[in-house]
């Protein structure tokens, strides 16, 4: 949705006095409780790595780990390794697949986190541990695997066509528009407080109270000031003092973590209470996510076997960077297309944004593509909804088409003098007479569909350049080799992270 449309919807939500739906059906895949792992992190101000980690699978008890001194790297490493073991087990990473087919029962092990700072923490763990090389061998391999998993989850959370890792606050913002400033919608507690019934004033008051309670990975300065003497006592005190300080720290941190875990649980409950039907796009996302997990398992096994692991920061190699970018672009296009295809609110927005056309079929004809292929061509007369983003050559899809792989390519767009347009679209596949699409349909909508499979093909082609370079089958071999090996003077990314 464009920012302008979301701004207008926010105003309407305010006038209606409550959050309003953005979708008609749930576009997110939400796994069954048994397949969901909810995770929460805490960190000390100024530090990157966790002070405490908690997780909960299904309705089981929360498991909460903490360290009395998060600036002690050994303590933190042990904690993260134990968390990593649980994460790896939940995702099934330790079961190395024999082939790349999706697992038969279509279940997706899913991770849920509260907000953007938890997502940041996944990345920070990945940065620290995915490629670490120093340390105890057993611990190191567990930490490396944990780092790789966290990196994968971090990337999945940023991919609209993946549901392996879901950020609860973002999920709520995907399905609802809230009558408040966008900055406040980053706070999960605020969102949850706005949802239950009440007047607008009541919701705003509840929200104000809720947002005073910290749910990010940071503790409030007040709480940290209270913890400081305990940390000092643990660091410098005698045995009894240390033990007492540790227990008290554990207790306080556990309470903080539990609150965060509970808020994610409440978000899941709130999403369930909306009772939205599951969108077909959610099903596609689930399938794609399962495939992605399968591929990650294979990749992980190769890394264990000696292949270098991907950098959590960036792809330095231009071929790999381009291939990954194209893959992500394909996923984004497919997710956007699926959403438009399956949701009339989203489709309405697309029409007003110029990313879809809505009109009447005024002409049907059969066109010959040399040498002998016949293609159906439609002329659609549309009302004037404003400037069109779609243009000649763009691919579109019609939601009522029974043929899900059928696409319509825009051949021409002509303005009608008194308003409206004539848009000519041509099917991308030959069709038999008995398969004539949209038969009997008058009023139709065609939305932007792009070409995710073409993007994926392109991604594969770029990836293949690596092989072709090695086999000396490229006319621009020296040029490409130089582009890949160019040193532009950046401080080299350390291949390992030394402990100080």
């Amino acid at each position, binding site marked *: 949705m464009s920012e302008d449309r979301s701004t207008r919807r926010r105003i309407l939500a305010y006038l209606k006095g409550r959050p309003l739906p953005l979708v008609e059906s749930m576009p997110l895949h939400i796994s069954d409780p048994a397949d969901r792992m909810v995770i929460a992190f805490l960190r000390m101000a100024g530090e990157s790595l966790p002070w405490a980690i908690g997780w909960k699978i299904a309705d089981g008890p929360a498991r909460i780990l903490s360290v009395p001194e998060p600036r002690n790297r050994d303590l933190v490493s042990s904690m993260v390794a134990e968390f990593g073991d649980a994460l790896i087990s939940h995702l099934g990473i330790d079961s190395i697949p024999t082939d790349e087919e999706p697992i038969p029962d279509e279940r997706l092990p899913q991770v849920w986190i509260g907000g953007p700072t938890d997502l940041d923490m996944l990345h920070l763990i990945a940065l620290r541990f995915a490629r670490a090389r120093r340390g105890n061998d057993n611990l190191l391999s567990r930490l490396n695997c944990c780092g790789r998993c966290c990196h994968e989850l971090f990337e999945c959370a940023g991919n609209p066509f993946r549901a392996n890792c879901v950020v609860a606050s973002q999920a709520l913002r995907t399905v609802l528009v809230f009558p408040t400033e966008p900055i406040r919608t980053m706070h999960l507690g605020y969102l949850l407080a706005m949802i239950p019934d009440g007047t607008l004033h009541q919701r705003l008051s509840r929200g104000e109270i809720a947002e005073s309670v910290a749910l990010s990975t940071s503790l409030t300065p007040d709480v940290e000031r209270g913890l400081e003497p305990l940390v000092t006592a643990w660091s410098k005190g005698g045995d009894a003092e240390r033990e007492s300080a540790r227990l008290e720290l554990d207790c306080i941190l556990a309470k903080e973590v539990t609150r965060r875990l509970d808020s994610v649980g409440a978000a899941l409950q709130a999403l369930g209470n909306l009772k939205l039907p599951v969108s077909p796009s959610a099903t596609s996302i689930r399938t794609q996510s399962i495939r992605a997990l399968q591929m990650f398992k294979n990749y992980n096994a190769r890394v264990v076997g000696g292949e270098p692991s991907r950098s959590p920061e960036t*792809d330095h190699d*231009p071929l790999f960077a381009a291939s990954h*970018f194209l893959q992500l672009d394909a996923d984004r296009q497919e997710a956007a297309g699926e959403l438009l295809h399956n949701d009339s609110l989203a489709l309405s927005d697309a029409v007003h944004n110029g990313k879809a056309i809505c009109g009447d079929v005024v002409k049907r004809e059969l*066109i010959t593509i040399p040498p002998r292929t016949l293609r159906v061509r439609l002329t659609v007369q549309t009302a004037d909804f404003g400037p069109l983003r779609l243009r000649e050559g763009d691919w579109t899809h019609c939601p009522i088409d029974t043929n899900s792989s059928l696409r319509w390519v825009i051949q021409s767009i002509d303005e009608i003098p008194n308003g409206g347009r004539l848009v000519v679209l041509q099917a991308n596949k030959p069709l038999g007479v008995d398969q004539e699409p949209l038969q009997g349909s008058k009023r139709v909508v065609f939305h932007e569909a792009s070409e995710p499979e073409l993007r994926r093909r392109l991604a594969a082609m770029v990836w293949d350049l690596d092989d072709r370079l090695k086999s000396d089958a490229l006319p621009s071999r020296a040029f490409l080799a130089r582009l890949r090996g160019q040193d532009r003077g950046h401080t080299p990314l350390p291949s390992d992270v030394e402990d100080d």
Partner: protein
Amino acid sequence: MTDPSLHRADLSRKTDALAQRLLERLTSEGETADVVASPPGAGKTRLLVKLCVALAGQGKAIGVVCQTTQQANDVAKRLVDETPQCPIVRFLGSSAPADDKIDGTLSVRKTSEFPVGKKVVIGTSAKWSLIGMCDVLDALLIDEAWQMTFSTFLPIMRFTGRFLIIGDPGQLPPVVTTPTERWATSDMPPHVAAPEVLLRDGQIQLHQLPATWRLPHDSAKAIAPFYDFAFESAAQPTERRFSRAGSGPLDDIERALNALNDRSTSLLLVPTPASGTLATGDRGVASAIVQTAVRALETGAVATSRDRAKPRNDILLPQDIGITTSRREMVRAIRDELPSELRTQIRVDTAERWQGSECQLMIIAHPLSSVRVPSEFDLATGRLCVMASRHRCALIVVTRDHVPETLAGHMPSATQPLGQSDTAGRGLFQHRSFWEAISA
């Protein structure tokens, strides 16, 4: 002041010398890559066509990569006009209609249909990047290259070892809607314009076209801040003129049109109401734009060009006027204001759609009109550069009058990724320089 015709002759010599250097590079042994940065209306497609003809004349098999179907068709037509002694092949998408043929060209959809031997094959980057394989070409010439991402360039490295990459760096970058944080600090980011990435390789040669042939002299100076290199205008001061046979009531619109008697750019300020205006669809500004266009037509506007071989005085017709804005809703608001008889004659469109086109008189809604707190999107100058460089004779900038205050008071935040250029900050400087130039 230099004699204008000597000045233009000198520019032509420089362009010819550049063409010769590029021809030598493209026919030399080994792999070569050259980037040609061009100001708007500098003849980059003409250069490309000229090189194609010369290379074909030497028996070469050349590929031309364009960014859109329309651009590819334009290049094909221009090549046909040059009657090169070789097949001109229009490489079409698989879903292109059968009747989509250009006279004088061979339309093909597969590489197996390419004629053997010398040829010029013109296709879009989307088409070229997806083909499995073709015989190695002697060279690939890429037009409007700053509109192409590096990730789109990579696959076409399969077909040749000699590249000529031409484009305008001041204009709109490739549209990327996918999140790119992962590659923001990459050495060769896939989402960035291909020439920008390639130029990080110190061995790629960068050339520049020396002048704009489209823009009047002072207009070229006004858009100069948007470029990192200096360029001239082929037209000298006063060689392009906007004049009118009649006049209207002495209001702000009249004053803005009268200002064009002495210069090619003019500013029309619309008071900013206290009640607020919509940045997206400001009817007050839309109305002012339309009234300006209508007044120009009604008072017999004439575009004079003295820098042509035969000086011309062209009475402005509706199709000689272009209107552009940075926002789609504003396009709608302007079209709604236009009298019905002018709606199909005066072209109103966003900056993106105006790229590659030109007209005599351009009337634009300033991108910052009604924007009180500019965002990075607002401060990016690609759009403004396109909008302010379409005209051959005159440019009128219409805006709410708060813009100078907004520009003076704005303090930009530098949120760009690590090690990258501060586009918001630089954009602010460029906006201020442009404003100074048009309001002087």
